[in-house]
Each structure stands twice: as C-alpha cells, then as structure tokens.
C-alpha cells in the first residue's frame, strides 16, 4: 500500500500533536466547527496522498514546465509518492468526458480535502468567452473547484498578478485568481516561479500540515521576503561602483553589476539569487542579463527592461579610492531611497489589487 498522508507525515518526522493541530486549523479554515477536526484527522489517516487539482486558464504552461524541472524533490517522486495529481490537463492520460469525470469525482469525493493549484488566470471580458475549455468559461470552472478546496495555490505571475495577458491594455480582462474566488490564496509568483520554490511550497504544506508563513501580499516569506539585489553575488560590484556599461564590454566579461543595463534586482522579491535556477546552475544575472522583475505585480508595465531604475549619474569605475568612496555613499543613498519608494508604492498597489471583483 502507498503510505497514507499521515504515514508520510510521520516518516517526515511530524509528531501526532502537530498532525492534529493541522487538522484543527484546516477544520477552522473550512468553518467545519467542533468535530470537524476529528473527521479530517480520520480522513487523512485512512486516505492516502493529498489530492491535487491543477487547473489551467490563460497561460503558457511555463509553470508546469518549471515544476517538472524540480531537483529536490524530483517531480516524479512528488507526484507518485506525496500527492495524488488527480486532474491536470497537461499531463493526465484521460481526455474529454473521462477527464471531466476525474475532476468531478475528485472534488466530490475529497470535498474540503484537496489542494487546488491554478496556473494561468480567467479572462473576465465578454462573459469569459476568451477561455472556454469544455465549452464553458474558465472562470466558472475555477470558482466551482475553489469552493471546496482545502487550500489554493496560485502558480506564477498569471494566477498571482495577471502577467503578460493582463499587461496594458489587457484585451481579455485577464484577472488574478484572488479577485474571483473567496479562498485565501498562496501566491507563488514568477514567470515562471523557480522549480524548487514551487515544490518547496507544496511539500511544506503536505509535510508540516500548514501553510507557510505569508507576507501581506500572500507570498511565502521563505522565498519572497528579500530582494534579488539583497543576496546578489554581484552586489559587491554595485557597492564598488563597477558596472556593465554596454553588452559584452569589459565589465560584462568581468561579471560586474548589471544595474545600468536595467537590472530590476533591487526592486524584485524572489529567490533567484539564493535558490537559483535549474538545480542552482545559474540565474539571469549570473548569465549576464539583468533581472526583468518577473515575480513583481505589473512588471510588464514598468517601462523597458533596459531602463535604469533611477537616474543615478554615470561615474568612473575604480577611478581611485576617494572617488569610489564617494560613489558608494551616493549609490547607497539613492538605492535606499529607491527601495523605500518602491516599497511604499507596492503597499498602495497591493491594497488595491487585493480588492475582489464583483461576481
């Protein structure tokens, strides 16, 4: 027999006490009241792997592709041993009626117990006809499946913020999922998110029986609480005033800071400079291109990817000790100001983007 959810948790070193706490938290979040926790505990002890329903709206499937790049855990281990991926149009064997039946069976049989993962977003323009899998608007499917989900995960910038199809002028009225469903949403932004960030979020939920700690915008703090700039290995060059001035120049070959080439690392919250990509092989800055800020809300509409973040005047590279010292002071000041301004704007924006769309 495949181990049950409870057995898997025990194998991962989770105590029975923590397990029961998870059950009562889940029960409370579902509004099941007294006795609900016992029911959930019983279900999880007898029912094996956590069912996952993975829906696709308007998207490009980069999140799925990223997910299967995960090195720890391997996607195959996750899907075969820890979860039960009962519905996912991209990889499931069944199609058409048999696929729809698999979805209905999962959300009925595991009512209140399945995780909903959403890749892409619903277009609300024109009654939702811009995305009609199964002949019906995607937004209806999303709301129906979300209704009885134990937890909802928004994969990538599409589900979290809207992403490219929501860039100005957003022709289809593509809308992030938290604006159309009532559930709390764990946002895992990025275009796509890093593979190990995605599997890290899922295994955290399954292993520790609770949602990871989230920031005000609903992003897991373990991956999104620091700027790429904060942990960038090229940061010392920024501080020393050593910049790439043109593509493939001497500074580029030395691996200097890409700030002047438009790098958005100083305003982007993500784990690229710590977790890195594809089993730690590199990340955008590590391969010579600035960060384009793909995990930030509305990053498509913040000017060119090659525009500098602020108007810091050019200054000499390693001119002399005094000059560099002065440079550092200026840069640090400007950078702090930029950070502060961006953070303030972000707060204002997040307050706005958390508003629900009327149903």
């Amino acid at each position, binding site marked *: 027999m*495949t181990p049950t959810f409870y057995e898997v948790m025990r194998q991962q070193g989770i105590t029975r006490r923590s397990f029961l706490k998870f059950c009562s938290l889940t029960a409370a979040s579902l509004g099941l009241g007294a006795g609900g926790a016992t029911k959930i505990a019983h279900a999880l002890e007898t029912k094996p792997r956590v069912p996952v329903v993975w829906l696709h709206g*308007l*998207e*490009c*499937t*980069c999140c799925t592709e*990223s997910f*299967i*790049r*995960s090195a720890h855990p391997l996607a195959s281990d996750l*899907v*075969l041993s820890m979860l039960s*991926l*009962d519905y996912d*149009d*991209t*990889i*499931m*064997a*069944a199609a*058409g*009626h048999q*696929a729809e039946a698999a979805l209905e069976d999962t959300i009925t049989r595991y009512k209140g117990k399945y995780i909903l993962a959403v890749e892409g977003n619903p277009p609300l*323009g*024109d*009654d*939702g*006809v*811009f995305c*009609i*899998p*199964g*002949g*019906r608007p995607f937004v*209806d499917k999303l709301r129906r499946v979300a209704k009885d989900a134990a937890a909802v995960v928004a994969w990538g910038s599409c589900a979290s913020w809207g*992403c*490219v*199809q929501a860039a100005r*002028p957003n*022709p289809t009225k*593509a809308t992030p999922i938290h604006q159309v469903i009532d559930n709390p949403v764990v946002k895992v932004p990025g*275009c*796509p998110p890093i593979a190990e960030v995605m599997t890290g979020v899922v295994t955290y939920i399954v292993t520790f029986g609770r949602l990871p700690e989230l920031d005000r915008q609903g992003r897991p703090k373990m991956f999104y609480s620091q700027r790429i700039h904060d942990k960038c290995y090229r940061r010392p060059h920024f501080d020393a005033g050593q910049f790439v001035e*043109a*593509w*493939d120049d001497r500074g580029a*070959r030395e*691996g200097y800071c890409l700030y002047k080439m438009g790098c958005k690392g100083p305003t982007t919250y993500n784990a690229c400079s710590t977790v890195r*990509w*594809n089993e730690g*092989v*590199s*990340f955008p800055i590590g*391969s*010579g*291109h600035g960060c*384009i800020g793909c995990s930030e809300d509305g990053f498509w509409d913040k000017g*060119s*990817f*090659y525009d500098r973040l602020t108007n810091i005047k050019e200054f000499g590279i390693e001119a002399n000790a005094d000059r560099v010292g002065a440079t550092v002071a200026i840069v640090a000041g400007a950078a702090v100001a930029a950070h502060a301004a961006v953070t303030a704007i972000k707060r204002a924006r997040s307050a706005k983007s958390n508003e629900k769309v009327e149903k």
Partner: protein
Amino acid sequence: MAVIETQGFRLDNSGRRIVVDPITRIEGHLRIEVNVDAKNVITNAVSTGTMWRGLEVILKGRDPRDAWAFTERICGVCTGVHAIASVRAVEDAIGIKIPDNANIIRNLMHATLYAQDHLVHFYHLHALDWVDVVSALNADPRRTSELAQSISAWPHSSIGYYRDLQSRLKRFVESGQLGPFKNGYWGHPGYKLPPEANLMAIGHYLEALDFQREIVKIQTIFGGKNPHPNWLVGGVPSPIDLDSPGAINMERLNMVARIIGETIAFIDQVYIPDLLAIASFYKDWAKWGGGIASQNVLAYGEFPDIANDDSNKSLLMPRGAILNGNLKEVQPVDLKDMNEIQEFVPHSWYKYADESKGLHPFDGVTEPEFVLGKNTKGTRTNIENVDESAKYSWVKTPRFRGQPMEVGPLARYVVAYAMGRPEFKEPVDMVLKKLDVPLPALFSTLGRTAARGLECSWAAHKMKYFYDKLIANIKAGQLATANVDNWEPRTWPAECKGVGYCEAPRGALGHWIRIKNAKIDNYQCIVPTTWNAGPRDGKSQIGPYEAALMNTPMAKPDEPLEVLRTIHSFDPCLACATHVISPEGKRIATVQVR
C-alpha cells in the same frame, strides 16, 4: 450540412457526433468534434481553439528590444522560440548583424530545446496513447529486461530494475489513487503492446521525466533560467571570457559538454529504440492520420550555419514548400511576399472588412467577434456542439499561396528529403526499412511521430556540432557575443519593418514587426499550431488536424484514443496558436448569437 468534397476528402456530418474537450496532454486548450458513421469511422472532423490572449495589441507602442520577453511568454513549453523569432525580426528591421558566437549560442540553445521538447512530447504527452500502464502489472520483469537489452545498450535494464519498478507501480495502482493515470483508456482494444513493452516504456517515462531537467541546463548556462531564458537583440547576453569568473568560462563549457554527451546517449539509447520498438506494434497507424501531409508541407528552415544568412546555403534544416504532393519540386518560400502567406477568418472568431480575402501579416487585422452559428448546440457560455458552417475557433486560417499547409517535424523531413539532404534522407530510409513499410507510410500519424524522434536525435548531435564550433572560435580568439552598434534607438531609421523566422519544435513560426519612431507600430505572429489546427477556409478546404482525423476507424467512440493519437502526433500548442490581435487595437469583442 450537405456532404462536402474537398482535397480528396468527403466531409459528412450526418452521423453520431463525438466531442473531446479538453484534449489533454497538450499545451493550451483545444476541442475536437468528430462525426462517425455506423461503422464508427470518422466522416467529419472539427478543430476548435478555445482560448485567446491578445498579446500583439499589448506589444503596440513598446520598445522593440523588449518584444522577445513578451512573445517568449506566448509559450512556456517551446520556450524561447518566440524570443528567437522576435530578436530576428527586430534585427532584420533595423539591419543589425549578430556576431558568429551569438549565432552559434542561439543555435545551441535552440537545439537544446528541440532535444528536451521532443523527448517530453514523446514520453509525457504522447506515450500514453500507445502504452497501457495497467497492462504493465502483468509483465515478467525477466522478459522485460531481455527485451530492453535486445534493443539497446542502455544500462538501466536489469531484471531487478524492472522488478522494483513493477512493485512501485503495483503499490501505486493498488492505492486506488491513480493520479494522472486516473480514468485513462486502460484495456482499450487499441493498445497493442505486450505487457513487457509497456513496463519498459513506463520505466523510460519516469527516467525521461528526470533526465529532461538536465538537458535544459544548457539554456540556463547561457540564458540564466529555464523555462524562459533571456535573449538579446544584437546577440546573446552571456559574455565569453575563459579567464574570468564572471563569464562563460571553462567550467561552464565543461558543463555544457557533459550535458550534450548525456543527451545524445539518452536519445539514441532510450528514445530511438523505444520509438522503433513501439512503432513495430502499431504499423496500422502508418495508414491513418496523414491528412494533407502527402499534399502540402511547409518549412521556413532553421539553424543558420552562417550568421545572419537565412538562405538554404546556410540553413542546416532547409526552407521550402511542397505543393500537391510534388516531391520533385521544392517551392521557394518568401516570408515578405505579400501574396504568399496570408491569414483568413471566415471560420474564426474574428472579423475582416472583406472575409473572402486574406491578409499578409505585415497588414494583419484581428478584430475579435465571438459569433456562433445557427446550428450550434447549447449557449454561448455552454457550448455542446459547435457549428462548423459558421465561425468556430479562436485560431485563424493561414494559407500559403491559398493552400493549407502542414508544418512540424514531418514537414521539415519531407522538405529536406525532397531536397536530397543526406542527414535527413538516410535516417528516414533506415526507419522505413527497419519497419518494412513504403515511403507513403511517412504521411501518417506514425510517420509524424517517427519524424519527431529522428529530429530529436539530429538536434542532439547538432548540439555537439555547435559546441565544437564555439570552442574553435574561442580557440581562434573570437570572443564577441553581442553587436551593440545599433543598441541605442537613436541609431534606428524612423520607420522600418522586418521578419523573424524560426522553426519551432512544432513547426514554422514567423514574427512580422513594423517599427515607427523606435516603438512597435505593428506586431504579428503566425505560429505552427495556427497552420495545423486552423479551421476551414472560405473554400471549405480543411486544415491538417481536421484532414488527419478523416477516415480513421474508432474502436470505441466513447473512448477517443484514436483521436488523441493523431492530434498528439502534431504536438499541439494552443497558447501559441491563439494570441493574435489587431495592431489597431480595435474594440475588443462584439458578441452576438445569430
């Protein structure tokens, strides 16, 4: 609908109607409806793209140097193909010549995608059409091992390996939670593999899932991440300096070399032997699914061996078209000829002033119009059956000199075969001989799937070729990876236009850009799945998907395995196919039910 005769097919929608929606194991959202006669043979096929994102209007007014990042997000499965087409379009418009190293690195990254994408398509999107997971439980691990060792030197083939795999699979099935295998068509009479071949294929399904992660690391080395690596107008962003810790250096190059070696080994020792072994049990499928492949195929060509030269002298994968099945004459293709490539919309949810005419993408117009025909069953937000006599898809209908064209690996192999290019002709002849089938067998579901496998191997070996070229350049002191002469918009002409071609894994891809005052004035893409999945044209000519489904017998129409086999053989990508919109950004969507 009365019976329609077109292109040698007889379309008759009087029989029972079967709907398959969603078509799963593809990128994006696709619906297929077919009619079957009393003998369950398909007599009519209807392909409907069910999503639309409108990316081109979003591009209007933006910096052309940013366009690669936007268009790259058209598709995350064939990641990078739109970026390549985009940077080429901008470079063509402005007249930027990229350095040789940049050309080689782009080729290497692109070949990397071919290897990974074709591999994932075969094992994770297509294999379950041929491989019965449940049957593998009855396999004898010893005989599975013998089978595996008889067809390949791949080391993971011991009795113990297959015994362990089978017991894992058994535990999985007995848990009652089949996950992605839930409600599959297990036990369907269409499955022909013996249990041992099924078990072997499942082993390789899992190995390929783990291995594909390795292949893409080459894109990560040069582009910083995958999916969606970074590209650059004028070259590539990653500089080369063997003596620097901050650039492509010996350690990075060694990693590339190691991955290339492993990729060649996996494809030649796992994918190709599996493909041939599985195909030998499904030779019937050399009779079905050909569609228009034996008539019209199109390839824009790819992998320029000479930087900035897209003539057939330079293209390692040639450009050309075959019309009316005439393999003796390969037609030239000109992406800028206003009369050659055009898009039509009489059956698409868009509006033209004159829908009897097509538009070249330089002048493309796309005004959404979600209108359902009077014979539609259901409502506009709950469609039961579409009406193919009216508008029925978010995909447009592209035509080459008025003809529907198949694109993709099979099309590329047919064009290259017709041109007598040995790298393509010899492997095709080898496979035909091995399976003991004649040349026309190529024009089929099986032929399409086989061509993709051969191409995957071709691409893997080309990765090595590009790597060696890069090393030779570095040895000769050539380090440049970017041409920045025209980086600044002030150096650009006030108005210009250009085309970016690409052969994506799924087929011919083109981007057409107009730039005005350093901003994008017009951007249009015609993508592979638009060619293949597009609806009928005004003359009722059917496209590749619809044609390929025609006349296929279905064993159990309620379990549409045969539809999946043929549609999957094209490797659909609907997010690509359905994103176009007018440069004018006219009013979005006028909706009415007739």
